[in-house]
């Protein structure tokens, strides 16, 4: 564990968050419906990429940077829950259930698919 590695974690973490911010804005702008498609797209695509990284079976440092730092910062659990809770406040229980279940099911499926692809490379 060295200073350079942690410096890279910081920079990659910042960059991953900025990418999430931009993707969320772009998806939200193109889907004019009151459903958090931006976060869904980010989280499912992130799960696919992290599954892929996991499947590659990289060394410790590479996995830390590509997985934990990059993809980990790109995806978000807190915004997913925040948007679900706000939909709940509006009594849109169908959308709450859809947002929670679709993210979870597609997330695990995407991670499995990514891992499969990564392991066969």
């Amino acid at each position, binding site marked *: 564990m060295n200073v350079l590695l942690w410096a890279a974690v910081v920079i990659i973490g910042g960059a991953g*968050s900025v990418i999430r911010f931009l993707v969320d*804005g772009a998806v*939200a702008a193109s889907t004019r419906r009151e459903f958090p498609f931006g976060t869904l797209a980010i*989280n499912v695509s992130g799960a696919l*990429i992290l599954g892929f990284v996991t499947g590659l079976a990289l060394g410790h440092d590479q996995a830390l940077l590509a997985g934990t730092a990059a993809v980990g910062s790109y995806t978000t659990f807190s915004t997913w*829950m925040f948007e679900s809770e706000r939909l709940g406040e509006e009594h849109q229980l169908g959308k709450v259930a859809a947002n929670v279940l679709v993210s979870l099911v597609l997330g695990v499926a*995407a991670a499995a698919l990514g891992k499969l692809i990564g392991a066969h490379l």
Partner: protein
Amino acid sequence: MPPDPAGDAAGAAVAGVTTGGDGSAGQTRTWRAFPRIDRQEIAAVFAGGALGTLARTALAEAFPHPPTAWPWPTFTVNLVACFLLGYFVTRLLERLPLSSYRRPLLGTGLCGGLSTFSTMQVEILGMIGAHDWGLAAGYAAASITAGYAAIYLATAMVRRVRVRA
């Protein structure tokens, strides 16, 4: 976070913005907002995300765990991030004067970088792979239930503090 004695002039100014709606208008707007590239906003997201990611990565490194053990590092950062996000965003939208960079810094950046969805999914996949279905279901259910509750609780805490007109 700047200190905010509830009920100062700034708080009162915000009241006019939020009491008319149900608080959801801001959220809806956010989903629809066209991404405008604002350097200060991007810098704020970057700074918050860097800090959140550093904290999450440090915790993950400090407490490694086998795939069939409860992922405490991920579980903990996700819940802390939910509580903080509920607190920050509710305060910023309903209690504090409009600010262009606090939500990107604290919400999108810090909480987004601190929490992670992808690691949780890969952890669940690992539990399923180990045929530990109970752990997988329990971890998913506990994360979602506690995460939702943390947002709800933080939001309620902020709203308990009245905005003085």
